[in-house]
């Protein structure tokens, strides 16, 4: 079923986890329709039609039969599970991780966060996942750097996420049992980078892994 050798079951992504974005949106969070800042991690799935690979061409989205006016990309550190992870504490959470890789989340521009963004997020091939799963002692020390056509557009230290890796694993494991081959993308930059057809997107975590994709026409 999977077009990706790493993710086998679920790809869970965490939205609104960039502290800069989270703090900047406080006034908006207070208004309708949100009526309060999120108390829990804001999660969404990238379903199996979205899964793709390092080096793959990402389809340019069609909206109602016409090419999308704009797409954006964010990159995230991704946790790959090596064993079943059910109701684990923050202290033991990292013991369930096989290793780390990168995920690109290509989407339409994020308009709001009130309803599940099926139209924006579930596009075919829009979730490339890195080829390597690498063991890392301290995932909080990593930084994800993304470039579009050679120009750096985002630099996101994992330490600046509202909720860190171990906390997310613990919280999510109390909602859903995670299985080997499940992946959590722990946080994307709040400012997603705009991309155009043909653009080359490169993300890297220094010393860990890289992910390269090209936008289709």
């Amino acid at each position: 079923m999977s077009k990706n050798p790493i993710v086998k079951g679920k790809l869970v992504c965490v939205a609104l986890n960039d502290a800069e974005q989270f703090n900047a949106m406080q006034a908006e969070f207070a208004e309708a329709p949100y009526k309060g800042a999120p108390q829990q991690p804001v999660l969404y799935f990238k379903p199996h039609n979205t899964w793709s690979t390092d080096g793959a061409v990402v389809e340019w989205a069609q909206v109602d039969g016409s090419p999308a006016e704009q797409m954006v990309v964010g990159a995230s550190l991704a946790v790959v599970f090596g064993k079943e992870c059910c109701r684990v504490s923050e202290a033991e959470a990292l013991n369930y991780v096989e290793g780390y890789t990168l995920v690109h989340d290509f989407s339409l521009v994020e308009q709001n966060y009130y309803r599940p963004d099926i139209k924006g997020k579930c596009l075919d091939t829009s979730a490339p996942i890195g080829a390597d799963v690498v063991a890392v002692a301290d995932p909080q020390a990593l930084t994800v750097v993304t470039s579009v056509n050679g120009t750096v557009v985002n630099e996101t230290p994992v330490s600046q996420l509202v909720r860190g890796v171990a906390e997310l694993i613990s919280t999510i494991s109390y909602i859903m049992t995670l299985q080997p081959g499940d992946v959590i993308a722990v946080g994307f930059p709040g400012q997603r980078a705009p991309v155009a057809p043909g653009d080359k997107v490169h993300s890297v975590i220094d010393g860990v892994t890289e992910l390269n994709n090209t936008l289709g026409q």
Partner: protein
Amino acid sequence: MKHARVLFNGSELDVTVEDLFAETGQLKSKVDGLLINEADVTWLCPVKEPGTIFALGLNYADHAAELAFEPPKEPLVFLKGANTLTGHKQNAYRPDNIEFQHYECELVAVIGKEGKNISREDAMDYIAGYTVCNDFAIRDYLENYYRPNLRVKSRDSLCPIGPWLIDKDDVGDITNLKLTTHVNGELTQEGTTADIIFDVPFLVEYLSKIMTLKPGDMIATGTPKGLKDMQPGDTVVCEIEKVGALVTHIVSEQTFYGDKY
């Protein structure tokens, strides 16, 4: 034909459900034709490799009114993880320290053929058949972010499905099927698919415009009015005319998770 998947002697087995099942309780192995008694099996999710699980919110006019929502102008679609799926006559849990957990009896259309940009006119060619799910919700956990959020709708065991997948042609017209839910024998929910706002052909067209649909993907089409809180010890039966009756036992979080609690 009705297709089911069961655990029998410790192995997963594909079976068909015999016509006289209601009287005989017999299932037939697809491997060797062996007849098996229902008493000797554990029912599993009837879809062998579950793909994307789409579910609809507020898709019955009467239910939207019950929750004080305007009927949506566009389908409210959310996704569920396969961790939510469990079979007929299995346990689903009530989380500790919550006020309101309700069932949702839903007709599920299962995709049988890959397709993209499928027209409403062709949509039914892409449906393999139907089953029933109980798309439980924990209303205490609702937040206004990607609502209904995963904490409400993607919990382990909280989407029982089955008992079987019935071929599309064995059901025929799905535009006026009666749905009922009974809790401990008492009728608590009653409706008809005639009240569906966005029907299966519409949803296939709508979703396939966004993304490729694949065999094993499922569309849970929403629930009519009639919500009721569930408690450990309750038995809930979601039934859809011509499709099947799905039985679920509610247990506590501690009972469900056992050693992992």
